[in-house]
């Protein structure tokens, strides 16, 4: 029995686990196409946990608010305070409702303006690790979502769907280090690729030496990568550093405030490139 006791052999176990990880990583790095099944299944299962956590936190908040409200009922004198607090809470609720309505109106206006088939979705969770900038939305394959569908907001481009499960989908934000989008400068029509970077900023790369780019220029999607529809706002040029004739660093400030996103639109209409690819595959 002593031979079977793995606790006596921590070193062997450690080597075995590390070896397992190395094999796992190697298998993925060698095959770069498609989403790993483990990733899709785990995400699908955990999306439900995230949904439950979202409902749970809201419930706890409601219970806590109720408890605080009850404490205010103890004396007559505090009755007035309670009424005032209720009125203030109601005012805040109405304000929140008005804000939400305005947000939905903006989404609706964007939907009409873009003439794209879109679907509104709510963000229900953030990424599981601080190293990847992803969020989870409450729509999935059941609602017609597919990988690489673009996600937009009234302010501009948000990101793309990386893994849809049945009732939720993981969205890679444009500011993720692995994210990229074809970009075009509105004023000079100079083209390049915008990639996620550090500190909530984007970097514009693959820009020609002859391109005309200055601080403040509006950066739009070029649609060249076949994910994002053409002409949507990415952000504004914040910094341009040149090294002789070539561009050393071009920093773009995203138009979308990723910290205050609550609702987004999923673009269901495929881009011309994606539609052509789908046509070929069929």
């Amino acid at each position, binding site marked *: 029995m002593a031979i079977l006791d*793995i*606790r006596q052999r*921590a070193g062997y*176990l*450690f080597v075995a*686990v*590390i070896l*397992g*990880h*190395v094999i*796992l*990583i190697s298998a*993925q*790095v060698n095959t770069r196409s498609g989403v*790993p099944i*483990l*990733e899709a299944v*785990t*995400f699908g299962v*955990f999306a439900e*946990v*995230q949904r439950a*956590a*979202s409902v*749970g*936190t809201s419930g706890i908040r409601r219970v806590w608010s109720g408890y605080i409200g009850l404490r205010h009922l103890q004396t007559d004198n505090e009755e007035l305070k309670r009424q005032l607090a209720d009125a203030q809470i109601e005012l805040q609720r109405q304000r929140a409702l008005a804000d939400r309505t305005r947000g939905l109106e903006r989404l609706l206006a964007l939907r009409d303006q873009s003439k794209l088939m879109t679907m509104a979705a709510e*963000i229900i*969770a*953030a*990424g*599981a*690790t*601080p*190293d*990847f*900038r*992803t*969020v*989870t939305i409450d729509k999935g394959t059941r609602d017609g979502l597919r990988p690489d569908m673009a996600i937009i907001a009234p302010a501009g481009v948000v990101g793309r769907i*990386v*893994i849809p499960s049945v009732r939720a989908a*993981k969205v*890679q934000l444009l*500011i*993720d*280090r*692995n994210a990229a989008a074809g970009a075009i400068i509105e004023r000079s029509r100079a083209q390049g690729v915008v990639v996620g*970077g*550090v500190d*909530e900023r984007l970097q514009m790369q693959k820009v020609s030496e002859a391109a005309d780019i200055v601080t403040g220029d509006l950066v739009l999607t070029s649609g060249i990568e076949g994910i994002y529809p053409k002409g949507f706002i990415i952000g504004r040029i914040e910094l341009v550093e040149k090294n002789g004739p070539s561009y050393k660093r071009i920093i773009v400030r995203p138009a979308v405030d*990723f*910290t205050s*996103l609550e609702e987004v639109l999923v673009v269901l209409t495929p881009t011309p490139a994606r539609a052509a690819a789908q046509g070929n595959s069929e």
Partner: protein
Amino acid sequence: MKAAGVILAIVGALGLQTALGRFVSRGTVAVDLVLVVVLYVALTSGPVTGLLSGAAAGLVQDALSSGVIGIGGLAKTLVGFLTGIIGTQFIVAQPFPRFVVFFAGTVVHAIVFMGLYVLLELRQFGTPYGAVAGQAFGNAVVGVLAFQVVELLPGVLERRRGQRARIRR
């Protein structure tokens, strides 16, 4: 029973990380709660539990991220194992040594995690020193607080019960 507790703690940390992450200002989460749980478990339970909980937590976290599955798992396995060894070889019972272990554990985790991505030419991280230091500090503070709460809470509750019993008499 202990394994169930560890699994619950990891799932809870993941749930909390994903639920609260979107409310944090600037969108940057300065604390990796899952890593804090792994370090805590490793310090209290030793290298075997540390490496197993690190592997499980890291793999799940990888699967929920858009990165390569296994890199976070490997980093957390290594950190869990090393922290478990430190926990069994040295007396880490005061807040400052615990702070150092949590801080160093986060730094080692970041080095392995980012190092593997750079080595495999999958990602570039620029100069992440500030972000890593910030996360290490955040993890250390949360870790030390977790120890304090777990150790002090039973005593506080016991004292309260005693006081209530005296008042009734």
